């Protein structure tokens, strides 16, 4: 069990990082990384939804395979995710308005987040995921990997936006180049032999 745990941890956080290595969840990654606190808020919200999404979609898919209708997986997954987000938004708004003002405003963004549907789909194809427990772990670590990437970029961008810079490079192009350097740094981890 522990070797799978470590393999999932390393894949989720570094080797197969959802943002930098697999290009999932790019819109919030670049849209929300202007300030570190908004990045952290988004990261937590995405990780939470990813875990809940993995929890619901994995058993649902097993049922669909038994019945032979797995071609409907996209429509069922995204419908479940949209409903999760809708329910979460109303519940958090009621239970703790303070948490809602910190994190809740990002929830509607999560429905159109490629990372959440990505984790639901990749859970089925990744060979590390064998059961529901590993699916949940994969969801958690991929979410943490997303948070790690978005917070690092937010830190860099906050400092960089104040530097005197060519006005055409300011804003989006420079954050793409920053993300490029991050991608280079993360590639180093791919050479770790993962349980081979």
């Amino acid at each position, binding site marked *: 069990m522990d070797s799978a745990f470590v393999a999932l941890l390393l894949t989720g956080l570094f080797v197969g990082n959802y943002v*930098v*290595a*697999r*290009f*999932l*969840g*790019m*819109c919030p*990654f*670049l849209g929300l990384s202007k300030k570190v606190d908004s990045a952290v808020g988004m990261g937590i919200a995405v990780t939470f939804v990813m875990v809940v999404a993995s929890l619901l979609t994995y058993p649902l898919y097993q049922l669909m395979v038994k019945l032979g209708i797995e*071609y*409907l*997986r*996209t*429509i069922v*997954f*995204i*419908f479940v995710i*949209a*409903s999760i*987000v*809708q329910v979460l938004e109303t519940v958090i708004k009621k239970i703790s308005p303070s948490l809602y003002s910190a994190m809740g405003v990002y929830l*509607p963004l999560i*429905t*159109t*987040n*490629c990372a*959440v*549907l*990505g984790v639901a*789909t*990749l859970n089925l*194809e990744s060979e590390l995921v064998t059961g529901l427990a590993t699916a949940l772990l994969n969801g958690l670590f991929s979410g943490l990997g997303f948070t790690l990437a978005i917070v690092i970029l937010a830190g860099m961008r906050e400092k960089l936006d104040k530097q005197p810079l060519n006005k*055409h*490079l300011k804003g*989006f*192009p*420079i*954050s*793409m*180049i920053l*993300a*490029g*350097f991050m*991608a*280079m740094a993360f*590639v180093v981890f791919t050479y770790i032999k993962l349980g081979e």
Partner: protein
Amino acid sequence: MKTRDVAVNGLIKENAVFRMLLGLCSILALSNKAINGLGMGVAVTFVLVCSNVVISLLKRVVPNKVRIPCYVLVIATFVTVVELLIKYLSAKSSAIAQIGDAMGVFLPLIVVNCIILARAEAFASKNTVGASAIDGLFVGMGYTIGLTLLGIVRELLGSGSIFGLQILGGFRITFFSQPAGAFITYGLLICLFNITYEKIEQNNANRKRKASVTLSNQVTEEGAVNG
């Protein structure tokens, strides 16, 4: 909005790849080969046009409380149609099989592609069916052209070929086909696009100001004459 405005809007002014920066997940992932970019662009355009039409039809029927789930349902249906089509066609020709395999996880991810839901929310749910269809078509075309352009640049640099045809004869900087290359190439291309876009805009502004200056000179002369 005349169709000419919608066209210019979709293709240049609000080009999804270079101006509005929507659908970044698919742009970065599918631009390693030009043929992948083209395939993805066509698939996204098909889904965009169909879902725009259906959503603008349903806009009064859908209650506000479940608006997002309903829109997502419609979009997911058309994405599954594309998936089935690709599965059917890839049995016929290996080229499509290659593209379908390269798209991989990004084919079902078209559902959450920011372009489609953005256009559905911003445009389709407020305009008529015809306008939505045209808007979807042109935004899709703008996306396809942008993505294929990025694909050509990255493939030429990354593996020395365009659409699979070896041109630079084995010369290749593998950096460009890796994720890091995707980020940096895309960033620089946008910077280039901004520079040219601003120059065009300045030229237009200068021309307009020159036109208005000549106009105002005539006014002041008349003013001075009878002032």
